[in-house]
């Protein structure tokens, strides 16, 4: 009796399947619970990895809910790579479609924030421009420049107060107000950071990150947009690596 790894794997991820035949306890009896050690190891190790990646989602849902949901997720979506630092990239999409979590519609965006923070942690090192570099651009050329962003930088748009929710749960900040917030993830130095992006600023920053010139991006400014506030935020977060 040859045990194929396909059969071994299928039963690992499906608790309703029996252990594959051909495995024993060393004394001729079926492996039984001994096979379950591997089953348990796989689900626990993958659930732990998910928990490490999404501490705020876990806090929002509570331990019990999170572990039960993780069990469903890891069986349906085992990693596609041995780099666990990438595991859970489709977790926000899973959350959006997970019926028991429908009462908390902000969860997928909060999960995107956590993914972006982890990506930033591992992102390539990049030297930011000096804070004075923008001041050296002649005023009549300012509208023509394009910004290059550090590999750690990402922008998570949302209709929910994701910055406030993340801050309240990860840092013990005040309770979030029910407003639309987007979030900028960057990495000044070695520690990822999260900054609030208001709805009036979001289209400008989105355009800049897509390669638009500053002049074209400014045409998209919404209510309350403040260019100097945005630029000093980007500079302080080490988000800009070049002016082109």
């Amino acid at each position, binding site marked *: *009796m*040859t*045990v*194929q*790894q*396909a059969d*071994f*794997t299928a039963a*690992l991820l499906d608790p309703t399947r029996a252990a594959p035949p*051909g*495995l*024993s*306890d*060393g*004394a001729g*009896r079926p*492996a*039984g*619970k*001994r*096979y379950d*050690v*591997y089953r348990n*190891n*796989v689900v626990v*190790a*993958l659930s732990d*990895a998910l928990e490490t990646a999404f501490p705020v989602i876990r806090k929002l849902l509570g331990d019990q809910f999170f572990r039960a949901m993780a069990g469903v997720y890891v069986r349906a979506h*085992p*990693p*596609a*790579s*041995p*780099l*666990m*630092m990438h595991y859970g990239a489709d977790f926000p999409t899973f959350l959006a479609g997970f019926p028991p979590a429908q009462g908390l519609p902000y969860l997928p965006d909060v999960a995107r924030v956590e993914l972006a923070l982890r990506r*930033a*942690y*591992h*992102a*390539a*090192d*990049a030297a930011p421009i000096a804070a004075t570099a923008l001041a050296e651009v002649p005023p009549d050329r300012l509208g023509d420049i394009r910004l290059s962003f550090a*590999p*750690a930088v990402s922008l998570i748009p949302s209709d929910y107060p994701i910055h406030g929710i993340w801050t309240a749960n990860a840092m013990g900040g005040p309770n979030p107000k029910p407003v639309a917030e987007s979030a900028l993830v960057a*990495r000044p130095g*070695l*520690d990822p950071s999260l900054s609030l992006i208001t709805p009036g600023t979001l289209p400008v920053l989105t355009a800049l990150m897509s390669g638009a010139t500053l002049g074209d991006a400014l045409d998209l400014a919404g209510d309350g947009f403040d260019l100097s506030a945005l630029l000093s935020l980007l500079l302080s977060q080490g988000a800009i690596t070049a002016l082109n």
Partner: protein
Amino acid sequence: MLDASLPDPGLPARPGVGYKAQHFNALLSDPGPAAWLEVHAENYMGDGGRPLAQLRHLAERFPLSVHGVGLSIGGEGPLDPDHLARLRHLVGWLNPASFSEHLAWSTHDSHFLNDLLPLPYTQSTLSRVATHIDQLQEAIGRQMLLENPSSYLAFDESELTETEFLREVVARTGCGLLLDVNNVFVSATNLKTSPRAYIDAFPLEAVGEIHLGGHDEDKDDHGETLLIDSHGREVVDPVWALLDYTLAKSGPKPILIEWDNDVPDWPILAAEADRAQAALALIPS
């Protein structure tokens, strides 16, 4: 086959510890008995940031052992060429004193299961494992050490004992071995064999590193003791005794303390490394 008859002498025959980020400052200020560090290769395959910055610091200070946990050397499918390239890059960058991986599989059909899964000891497994080790050693340009697993069950189809299997892998590939003494104890308890007989049959001359770690205790369906390799607590006394038995036969070896779950404060881990140092000092000359 690699042209190497002896294990890479890179790691000192002293205690080392599995590196955890929370011990970074303690290790740099006073590593105590820890003469070298082991890191899991896959944790250092990001593009930059703190993990690589810390590793750069540690590499200046300590001999490093890079320990892969994700290549799936025992997998039925081919090795992942992207992962081989990442390993080659990491080993090229760090030039560690040692590189090791496991006699196990963890990937099937591009699903990575994040566990070290067991293999039957057959001729067909043997040729597959040997081929994969050849490919790995070719990719990283050096000898690797292959680690014996913890076993919870046996395959009816097995034709060789684990020690016969490992001896043959060494003969075919020129790889060295990483002898996990806790795994020997766990497997022997679970499958009711003799841990000392295993050590007696083990090709100790090929051992380039020893692992020690803690395990948990459970029961199987028949109420028999089932030990689980958990790396979450102190090494137990019978494993220290088995280490003494091993060292008396093998002579001094680099000894790693593995503690991956419920990681303790540095002094507790350092005390385990102290105990390994004491075991090395006891070796009869």
